[in-house]
C-alpha cells in the first residue's frame, strides 16, 4: 500500500556524487557520505515509514520531516502499540502519550552539522573509528551505498549504514557490537522525498482537552549551557576519544534538588553522568541496567548518587563511572 517512490526534485542537498568514484581515500569517501547524510536528513522534506528491531521486538514508526524557512520540524509516530508521538522543531521537543493522556514539552538543543562541533574534528574521529565504504545494496527498492563505521576498541558501538545513492538519506541502520553483531536495527520500508510538506502534517494527531501538559520548555532542564558550573568532581581516565561536551545543573522530577549533569561524547556516542545528593529515605537505582543498546550504571558514592547512561557498551559506562573523582 505504500508505494516506494522517490521524487527527486529541486531539494537535493549537496552534491550526491561527490567522492563517489575517484576519491583516493576510502575513509574520506565514507565521511563525505556521512556529511551528506547529515545534510540530507536535516535539509530535505520527506515522509517515510521504518521498522525498528531491538531486543527481539519490532516496531513500526512513521516519520515526517520538514525543512522550511530555516526551521527544521520532525514528527515521529509509533504505528505499533500506543500511538506515541515525538514532535521536534528548533524550539522544543514534544512527547505525546495517548494512553497516559500526557504531553511533555522540553526545550530542544540545536542540532549541529556532522560531525558535531566538538573540540575535535572529523579526522580525530578516525582515532577511535574506522570509516569504510562497503559496497552497494538495495533497500526497499532503492539503490543504496553501504558505509561501515568500525570502532577501534570495545568502548563504543559500530554502525552499518545504508544511504540512498541519490540523496544520501539514511535508509537502513544497524548498530553493531564489538563482534559486528547487530544490537539495534532500523530500516525504511517506505520513503518519499517531497518538494514541500504542509505544516499541518507536522501538527500532532492527538490533542485532547483532558491531556495533562508538562511544559519544561522554559525551565532550566535541557539547556545547552556550556558555562561550567561549580563542581566538586574531577574527570580522569575516560575511554579514548571521549570529551566533556556539556556540563550543567538542572532540576529533575526523580531527584530531590538539583542534579549535576555531565555529557561526554566521542563524536558519535554520547554518555551522560547524573550526580545528585544521596537520599537515605529513598530507594535509588543500583547496579547495571540495560535497554537494547543503552546501558545505565548507578552507584552510591559517599554522599552522592551517580547514574551513568548512554548508548554505549557496558564497559564504557563502567569506565566512565570510575573516571569520576570527588575532589571537594
Amino acid at each position, binding site marked *: *500500500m*505504500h508505494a516506494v517512490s522517490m521524487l527527486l526534485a529541486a531539494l537535493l542537498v549537496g552534491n550526491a556524487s561527490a567522492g563517489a568514484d575517484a576519491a583516493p581515500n576510502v575513509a574520506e569517501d565514507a565521511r563525505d557520505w556521512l556529511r551528506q547524510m547529515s545534510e540530507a536528513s536535516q535539509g530535505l522534506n520527506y515522509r517515510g515509514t521504518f*521498522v*525498528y528491531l*531491538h531486543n*527481539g*521486538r519490532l*516496531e513500526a514508526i512513521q516519520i515526517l520531516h520538514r525543512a522550511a524557512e530555516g526551521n527544521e520540524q520532525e514528527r*515521529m*509516530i509509533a*504505528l*505499533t*502499540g*500506543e*500511538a*506515541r508521538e*515525538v514532535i521536534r522543531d528548533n524550539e522544543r*521537543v514534544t*512527547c505525546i502519550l495517548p*494512553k*497516559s493522556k*500526557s504531553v*511533555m514539552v*522540553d526545550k*530542544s538543543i540545536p542540532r549541529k552539522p556532522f560531525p*558535531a562541533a566538538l573540540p575535535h574534528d572529523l579526522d580525530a574521529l578516525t582515532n577511535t573509528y574506522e570509516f569504510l565504504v562497503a559496497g552497494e545494496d538495495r*533497500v526497499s527498492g532503492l539503490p543504496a551505498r553501504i558505509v561501515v563505521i568500525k570502532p577501534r576498541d570495545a568502548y563504543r558501538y559500530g554502525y552499518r549504514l545504508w544511504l540512498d545513492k541519490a540523496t544520501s538519506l539514511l535508509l*537502513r*541502520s544497524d*548498530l553493531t557490537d564489538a563482534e559486528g553483531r*547487530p544490537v539495534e536495527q*532500523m*530500516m525504511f*520500508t517506505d520513503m518519499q522525498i517531497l518538494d514541500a510538506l504542509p505544516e499541518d502534517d507536522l501538527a500532532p494527531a492527538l490533542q485532547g482537552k483532558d491531556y*495533562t501538559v*508538562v511544559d519544561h520548555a522554559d525551565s532550566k532542564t535541557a539547556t545547552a549551557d556550556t558555562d561550567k558550573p561549580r563542581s566538586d568532581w574531577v574527570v580522569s581516565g575516560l575511554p579514548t576519544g571521549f570529551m566533556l561536551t*556539556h556540563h550543567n545543573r538542572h*532540576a*529533575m*522530577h*526523580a*531527584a*530531590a534538588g538539583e542534579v549535576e549533569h555531565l*555529557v561526554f561524547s566521542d563524536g*558519535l556516542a*554520547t554518555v*551522560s553522568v*547524573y550526580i545528585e545528593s544521596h537520599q537515605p529515605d529513598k*530507594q*535509588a537505582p543500583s*547496579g*547495571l*541496567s*540495560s*535497554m*537494547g543498546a543503552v546501558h545505565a550504571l548507578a552507584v552510591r558514592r559517599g554522599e552522592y548518587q551517580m*547514574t551513568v*547512561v*548512554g*548508548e554505549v557498551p557496558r564497559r564504557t559506562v563502567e569506565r566512565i563511572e570510575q573516571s569520576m573523582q570527588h575532589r571537594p
Partner: protein
Amino acid sequence: MSEQIKEQISAFFDGELPAAEQSLLLERMARDPALRAHWDRYQLIGDSLRKSLPPHIDLGLADRVMQELDAAPVHHGSATSALQRVLKPVAGLAVAASVAVFAVLAVQQARAPEPGAVQIAAKSQVMPGPEAYTRVEGTRWNTEGGTQHPQVSNQLNEYLVNHSEYAASGGMPGMLPYVRVVGYDQE
C-alpha cells in the same frame, strides 16, 4: 511469497520468532516488495482496530480489514493472537513511563490542597511520594540481579529522556535517539 515467510511474519507479531530469524526477515523485507506489503497489512489491521490510523491514510477500510481477517490467517491461532497482541492495552513505552510519571505527578499536584502545588511538577523542588509512581506498570530496563523497583526504573527513564536530546544534538546524525524514545513499547 512462501507460506513459510508469512508464518514468520505472523510469528514475528506474536513475539515468537527467534532472534536469528528476525534479522533474516528484515533482510528479506529489504528486498521483497510483496513481503513489505504483507507487513503493511498486518500493520493496518492493528491500526484500524485500535482506531489510531494516521490522518493521511484512507479511513474507509473496515471492509478491507474484514477481508484481511477472513483471508489472512496463515495458521489461525497465531493470527488471532497477533490481533490480541495489538489490541492488548499497552503499558506505554519505557521512556513513556517516565512521562507518565510526570502526568501522574501533575494530576496529583493539581488535586493537592495547597495553591501553587502545580508548580512543583515544573520546578521539581519537592520529592513526590511513592504513590505518585504507582500507575507505571514496569519498564523494559533489564537489571542485573533482578528487577528494579518501579520508582527506580522511572528515575532511569527520566535520565534517558533527558539524555536523548543531548545524544541527538551532538552525536550520530540522523534520528536514532528519538527512535528509542518513540520505539520503546512495553510489554
